[in-house]
């Protein structure tokens, strides 16, 4: 019974990690990426995080364009 409960718990943890990954830890290396960019001037060149080394970079994930906040 105990083993069954443990197996179930581990299974739930595994499912959870498949659907939503945990946020990254402070002190860890920020994973590199490249994404299409946009500014008030229009669509710009793709931005690669590694190209911004030497600058402080703030990554602000948000829900959707034209929403509050």
């Amino acid at each position, binding site marked *: 019974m105990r083993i069954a409960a443990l197996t179930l718990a581990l299974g739930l943890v595994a499912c959870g990690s498949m659907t939503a990954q945990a946020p990254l830890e402070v002190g860890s290396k920020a994973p590199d990426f490249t994404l299409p960019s946009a500014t008030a001037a229009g669509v710009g060149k793709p931005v690669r995080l590694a190209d911004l080394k030497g600058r402080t970079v*703030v990554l602000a994930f948000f829900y959707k364009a034209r929403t509050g906040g």
Partner: protein
Amino acid sequence: MNAYRDQYAQLFNGGKDVTLLAISTDAVGDLASWAKDAGYPFTFLSDTGGSVGRLYGAFNPAFRLDNRTLYVVGPDGTIVHRAAPFREVDPTAYTDLGAAVKKARGGQ
């Protein structure tokens, strides 16, 4: 995003030595038109598939949107501050963010 725009000088040193990247699953054209209409002085990134959101633990698979999650990455590429979730209605969230950016820049 209006709070970031209105406090751009204080929070992000007006973009000097600091790059603010606002990331969502919106199409890049939608982000560009919004940035123009609202006069945002920073850069938006389009993560339509949510792959970068997943990488950073921000992606919400139920809604296929990114939850409000914020990271400050220092000049050497290390994460120095995290707000997950970022509480956009809480003034202390902005105080913490401003302090983290300042510290990352070497307290200048």
